[in-house]
């Protein structure tokens, strides 16, 4: 069997792409339109409510996935984009930076959520 580590990155990329496609648009609509234009009543995202919601393990896990997976989606695409526009000679450092970034984001997300 050919040896390649791409499957791991590619599966994270795909999962991230799917999560981003499914949930990000509605979240953006909420935080970018509905809230600022006061279209959804009185401060539905108030601190108490959100804090207690995020304290649930299930919600934590979901939020973790929603933050982390799309980061890998970005890392994978961005890595190839940089290679495509001519940075092929430094493709290894690019890969390290991109995936490293996503991993760092993932760790921060994990720690932060843990602390709630």
């Amino acid at each position, binding site marked *: 069997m050919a040896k390649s580590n791409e499957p791991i990155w590619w599966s994270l990329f795909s999962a991230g792409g799917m999560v981003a496609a499914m949930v990000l*648009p509605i979240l953006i609509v909420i935080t970018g339109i509905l809230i600022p234009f006061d279209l959804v009543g009185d401060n539905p995202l108030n601190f108490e409510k959100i804090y207690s919601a995020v304290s649930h393990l299930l919600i934590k896990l979901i939020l973790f996935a929603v933050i982390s997976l799309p980061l890998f989606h*970005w890392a994978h695409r961005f890595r190839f984009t940089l290679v495509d526009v001519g940075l092929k000679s430094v493709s290894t450092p690019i890969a390290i930076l991109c995936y490293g970034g996503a991993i760092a984001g993932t760790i921060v997300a994990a720690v932060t959520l843990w*602390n709630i």
Partner: protein
Amino acid sequence: MSTYHRPVSNTLWLKRKPYILFMIRELTSVFVAGYCIFLLVLVYKLTQGANAYDNFMAALNSPSSVALHLITLVFVLYHTITWFNLTPKILVLYRGEERIPQWLVAGTFYAGWAVVSVIVAWLVLTV
């Protein structure tokens, strides 16, 4: 006799419309990541207490935040649409000899997207 190798430049991407659209598709990932970082900050503010959180949320009302959100939304929607449109390429399903039509596969994802969006909105806004 020698063959001629035509030079390939990195601006290749700008030479044909499909390539430009592809590049835009790939760059949507930057906005995807950007918004995820925004979410991460939001969660971080939660850990810093009500004050920090409220200030952060108040900033959402600023015109620049709205503008940034709208731009992000455009790109993320572009991501969603291209993503779903490509699903039937990967999910090749057969009913007997007949391939299940591509629009049906993509359509299922669009339907799923609608359902997920409603659920998320309901969870976030009302519960």
